[in-house]
């Protein structure tokens, strides 16, 4: 059995780890609240944009915009949204695993646009081409950041660097549950809803003019939304991971305390029996 001093030392070390995980949990919880608010409040916009785009596309079947044009796929771009830091359960690992699946599942060359340090480091070590990288997005992505990333992606697409771009992000449901997802970003394929009616729209200034505003704006919102969803998921995952780490620490400390008490008891018993037998020897 370990000596009492060793056990005390272990308890102390676990206690200080517990303090750190507890602090991280609280920080994540505070950040989660803010991130959650921005996800929820930005959802109506992206839903509306998708809505309008879907209805427009349904009533303009014969029309094609450069961002909607299907090309022969020579190279696939994957935008992977991971965190800059670890200690957040399976959050980064899920996206990385999904990315590997995608890479394994295609026979086309793949380039990565890595958002977040974790994903970049992982794939760089494995020698996979990283076309662009965005590190230090911060805890609250702004629309401007989403817009810049989206603009860059549209340039990569229209310059022919990539012929298809997918975005891999983590959809936020609640602090406990989040889902890694893949979305085809470019070329734009509006979702075909069932109840979309064909409406004869008046376009101002023209169909092309409207599409020129709508499509980039759709891409921007989708990217922004994905950034927000991922950030909220990251904080949620970190909170859950740190919360269970804290609980585990409590459990280990309890166990160690028990062992410590038992060891102490045993030491006392030995001492008593030594004294008693010493006294008996004197008689």
């Amino acid at each position, binding site marked *: 059995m370990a000596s009492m001093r060793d056990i005390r030392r272990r308890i102390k070390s676990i206690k200080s780890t517990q303090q750190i995980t507890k602090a991280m949990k609280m920080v994540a919880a505070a950040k989660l609240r803010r991130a959650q608010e921005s996800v929820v409040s930005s959802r109506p*916009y992206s839903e509306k*944009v998708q809505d309008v785009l879907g*209805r427009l596309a349904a009533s303009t079947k014969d029309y094609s915009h450069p961002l909607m044009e299907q090309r022969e796929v020579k190279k696939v771009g994957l935008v992977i949204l991971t965190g800059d830091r670890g200690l957040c359960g399976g959050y980064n690992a899920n996206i990385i695993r999904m990315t590997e699946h995608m890479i394994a599942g295609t026979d086309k060359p793949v380039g990565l646009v890595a958002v977040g340090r974790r994903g970049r480091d992982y794939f760089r070590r494995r020698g996979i081409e990283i076309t662009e990288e965005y590190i230090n997005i911060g805890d609250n992505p702004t629309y401007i950041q989403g817009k810049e990333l989206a603009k860059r992606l549209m340039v990569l697409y229209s310059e022919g660097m990539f012929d298809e771009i997918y975005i891999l992000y983590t959809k936020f449901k609640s602090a406990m549950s989040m889902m890694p997802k893949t979305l085809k970003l470019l070329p734009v394929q509006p979702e075909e809803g069932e109840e979309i009616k064909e*409406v004869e*729209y*008046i376009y*101002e200034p023209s169909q092309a003019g409207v599409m020129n505003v709508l499509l980039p704006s759709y891409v921007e919102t989708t990217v922004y939304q994905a950034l927000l969803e991922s950030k909220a998921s990251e904080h949620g995952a970190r909170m859950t991971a740190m919360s269970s780490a804290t609980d585990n620490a409590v459990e280990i400390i309890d166990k160690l305390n028990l062992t410590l008490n038992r060891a102490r008891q045993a030491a006392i018993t030995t001492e008593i029996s030594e004294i008693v037998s010493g006294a008996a020897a004197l008689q």
Partner: protein
Amino acid sequence: MAENAINFEVVTPEKVIISGNIDSLIVPAALGYLGVLSNHAPLVTALEIGVVTYRQDGKPKKMAISGGFLEVVNNKAVVLAQTAETEDKIDVSRAQSAKERAEKRLSERNADLDLLRAEMALKRAVSRIKAAQ
């Protein structure tokens, strides 16, 4: 619901600014200001930086927006804007200083001047000031 009401919504990436019934609406469309009354034909238009004016309960109200688009379908008007501020939320002094800054940059005409950007900034500032008046 009033008889000639339009369901009106202004949504930005950050949040839903307004959602409610209004009587009429004037927006800065790509080809100039454009009015929408109830039972308008389905319409999609790009919006410029400018002032949106709408009447709610008989009272005119104003709002500064910076680009986006408007969809009207089935008596429902949705403005999707990059930013939108109702008149009571506009920081006039900030808009004023932004206007002066943009004007200064435009008048100096430095070689590295991003003309388009400065002009956009000026337009945004002017529309904010207008909406707040």
